[in-house]
Every structure is written in structure tokens, then in C-alpha cells.
């Protein structure tokens, strides 16, 4: 009963709160399931460097995956926490710069969005005198770090021809539809951040990654490809929307603010708000929903087909990849449980909305 009341309160307080609840529910179920799942028979060492490198290797294009496995194989034999950390960080950096690079047009657009956002933020920072408050420096540092992280993720994902198209189209669709919902007004762009009863945007963030995740996973017969496409859609949409939202913040001097808050404070709060919304919440929500959709699609449609064991060098198939498939199947089951929980929360929410 208390759960229903909490959901009802979330619905009344606006879509962003509900998105956070959905994300937390999904994450909670995944964590709970992990705790209650028997350990895998594979005894590969598990620590922060190996997890970081496994994540980065997942970003490599298919014709470079064997190099990722080579890095993982070396890391497995390295002793000493700091040495392992250094090696893993170096490998992650090399994965980011490894050729081939993505298509020129989208890469240029990505650079333009990132550079444009940085310029707008810089202009706002100096024009409104935000430098006087140390808190603003912290906010700006976090914001720039997250933005650079998003740019790196998108630039790496763009190198994969199978997902670059659907991911970018999905991201672009979200950004354009979002502009349409805001009626192309600065106030319309900034105002949904704080409170809104408009459900069009959250529906967009749910529907698009669902379509992208299911579509790519269905066509490629790969969970990973579907998940990556949805991640690309979320991150590219977030970057585009963040760029436009920073302009909107400057255009209306931060927008409506509480009594007693000056223009500088309003602009600073609005910058933090749009960053939270478009650089973190939207990409995270879209990636999570796409992740669940792609996993469920591959699970039901292509049982056991999870990952292509690609080897471009003509070497025998690598046992490490087979172990990875086994591990990913376990994760797939966990994701399905999370999907069930999220679907239940959504169903309850929709019932409450209908009343």
C-alpha cells in the first residue's frame, strides 16, 4: 500500500521523478538478483580494472574485438592493484583512439555539439559572473566531465556500422520531437525540467529505445548490438538536447526562479538542471530501457545467440569469449527479471494515471 502511495506521489510530482523510480526499481532488482544467483563456474578474476576493461572492450568494433581479448588476457596475469589499474586505464585509452574512426558527418556533428555546448557554457559562466561562486566551478567541472564522457561513448559507438544508423536516427528523432513538444520556445525547453504534467517527453524516452533496441536486436540477432544502439540513441539525443538547452538557458536568463534568487543563481541552477536531465537522466533512462528491450528480444527470438565470436586474425576461437557468452546469459536472465519489475511498476503507474 505504501508502495502504491509512493508511486502515486511520484506521478503527481511529474515525469522526471517517475523515471528515477523506474531506474531505481530496475537497478534494485538486478542487484538483488545478483546477490541471489549462484556464482559462475568461470574463475576469471573480478576487480575494478577488469570490469572497466571489459566494459571498454565491449565498445570495440567487431574487427578489433580480438585485441580487446588480448588486453584482458594480459590484465589477468598482472599482479598488484596499482599496476593493474594503470594497465587497464592505458588499454581503455588505446581503445578510444584505435582506428577505424566513425563516419565523418556524424563525428563532425558530435564535435560541433560538444564544442558548441562548451562555448555556450563558457559564455554563460563569464557573462553572468558565475565564477564568483566556488560551487559553480564544481558544477561546471562535473558537467564538463560528464559531457566529455558522453562524447567518448558516442564517438566509440559510432564506429560500429550496424548500430550507428539506427542509434543516430533514434537519437535525432528524440531530439527533434522534444523540440516540437517544446514548441520551439526557450521557455518550453527549460520549463519541463522542474515540474511538468506533460507525459509526451517520458513516452518518447521509453518508446524510442524500445523500438531501437528491439529492432536492432531482432535484425542482428545480438543482444549487445541492440543494447549499444539504444545507448547510442540515448547519448546522442542527450548531447543534442543539452546543447540546445544550454542556449535556451542563456536565452531566458535561466528562466523562472524562486524569490530571492538572483539571475546568476537562476542560470547556475538551470545549467545544473539541464545537465542532470539531458546528459544523465535521459541517456540513462533510454539506455536502460533499450538494454531490457534488446535482451528480451534476443532471449525470446534467438535463444542462446548472444554474442558473435569474431576473430579477424584467423586464430582459433577464443575460450574467453565462450566464457563471456555464458556470463552474458546469466546477466540476460537478471535483466529479464528487472524488466518484469519495471513493467509491473509501469502497469501500476498507467492504472493510476487512468483513474
Amino acid at each position: 500500500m505504501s508502495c502504491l502511495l509512493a508511486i502515486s506521489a511520484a506521478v503527481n510530482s511529474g515525469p522526471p521523478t517517475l523515471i528515477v523510480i523506474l531506474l531505481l526499481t530496475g537497478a534494485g532488482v538486478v542487484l538483488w538478483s545478483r546477490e541471489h544467483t549462484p556464482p559462475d563456474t568461470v574463475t576469471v578474476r573480478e576487480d575494478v580494472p577488469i570490469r572497466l576493461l571489459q566494459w571498454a572492450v565491449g565498445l570495440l568494433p567487431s574487427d578489433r574485438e580480438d585485441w580487446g581479448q588480448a588486453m584482458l588476457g594480459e590484465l589477468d596475469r598482472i599482479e598488484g592493484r596499482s599496476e593493474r589499474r594503470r594497465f587497464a586505464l592505458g588499454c581503455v585509452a588505446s581503445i578510444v583512439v584505435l582506428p577505424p574512426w566513425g563516419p565523418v558527418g556524424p563525428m563532425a556533428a558530435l564535435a560541433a555539439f560538444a564544442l558548441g555546448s562548451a562555448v555556450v557554457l563558457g559564455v554563460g559562466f563569464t557573462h553572468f559572473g558565475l565564477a564568483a561562486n566556488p560551487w559553480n566551478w564544481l558544477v561546471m567541472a562535473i558537467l564538463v566531465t560528464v559531457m566529455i564522457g558522453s562524447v567518448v561513448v558516442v564517438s566509440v559507438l559510432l564506429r560500429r556500422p550496424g548500430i550507428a544508423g539506427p542509434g543516430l536516427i533514434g537519437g535525432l528523432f528524440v531530439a527533434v520531437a522534444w523540440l516540437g513538444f517544446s514548441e520551439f520556445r526557450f521557455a518550453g525547453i527549460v520549463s519541463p525540467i522542474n515540474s511538468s504534467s506533460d507525459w509526451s517527453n517520458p513516452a518518447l524516452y521509453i518508446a524510442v529505445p524500445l523500438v531501437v533496441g528491439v529492432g536492432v536486436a531482432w535484425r542482428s540477432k545480438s543482444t549487445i548490438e541492440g543494447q549499444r544502439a539504444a545507448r547510442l540513441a540515448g547519448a546522442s539525443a542527450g548531447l543534442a538536447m543539452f546543447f540546445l538547452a544550454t542556449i535556451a538557458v542563456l536565452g531566458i536568463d535561466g528562466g523562472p526562479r524562486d524569490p530571492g534568487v538572483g539571475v546568476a543563481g537562476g542560470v547556475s541552477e538551470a545549467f545544473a538542471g539541464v545537465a542532470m536531465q539531458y546528459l544523465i537522466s535521459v541517456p540513462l533512462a533510454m539506455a536502460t530501457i533499450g538494454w531490457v528491450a534488446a535482451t528480451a528480444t534476443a532471449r525470446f527470438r534467438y535463444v542462446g545467440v548472444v554474442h558473435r565470436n569474431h576473430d579477424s586474425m584467423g586464430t582459433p576461437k577464443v575460450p574467453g569469449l565462450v566464457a563471456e557468452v555464458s556470463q552474458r546469459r546469466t546477466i540476460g536472465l537478471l535483466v529479464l527479471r528487472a524488466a518484469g519489475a519495471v513493467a509491473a511498476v509501469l502497469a501500476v503507474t498507467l492504472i493510476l494515471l487512468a483513474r
Partner: protein
Amino acid sequence: MSMVRSRTPSPQVNRVMQALASDPARWRYGYELGTEVHLKSGSLYPILVRLADRGLLETSWEQGPPGRPPRHLYRLTTTGREYVAVLEVARGERSVPRRRLGLSGA
């Protein structure tokens, strides 16, 4: 040799190739090679990838114990060895005028 570009390789690439050429028949691990030539993984792997793409480096896998990932091994191809030999000749020719001018290290 057609895959090999004529551009002079960087000092880091030179170090990697020299280390591999010092015992060309031996397979090397990536971490061991990086330690030997004082290159971090962030610099070493892009070099190895480029060398392999250009046909100068051959690779192989060494199966590990059960439950452990395999390791990647590297050594120069015949083309790679020839390339190192050409580089050494070119370096020797360049060092002659330096010696005449007294520019080489004492």
C-alpha cells in the same frame, strides 16, 4: 612490402620493433614487451595494432589454464624483419654525417 608505408616510424615504434627483432623467433607477451621498451599499454597496443595491420607483426594465442583467458603473443613477420633491417641501414647512413660533424654522443 606494399603494405609498408615509407614514412619514418616514431621512436616508440622503433623501440618496439627493435625489441621484437632482437630475438625474432621468440613470441612475446604484450605486457612483457611494454615493460621491456618502457611503453604503457595506452601507447603499446595502438602500435601493435598498426604493425599487425601493416603485415609487420604476426600474432598467436596461448591457451591459459582452464577458466583463465588466453594470452596474445607477438613476433615480427618476415616483412617486419626486413623492414627493421632497412631501417637500421637508413639509420646508419644518417649517422655518418653526424659523426663527421662531431654530433654523435661521446
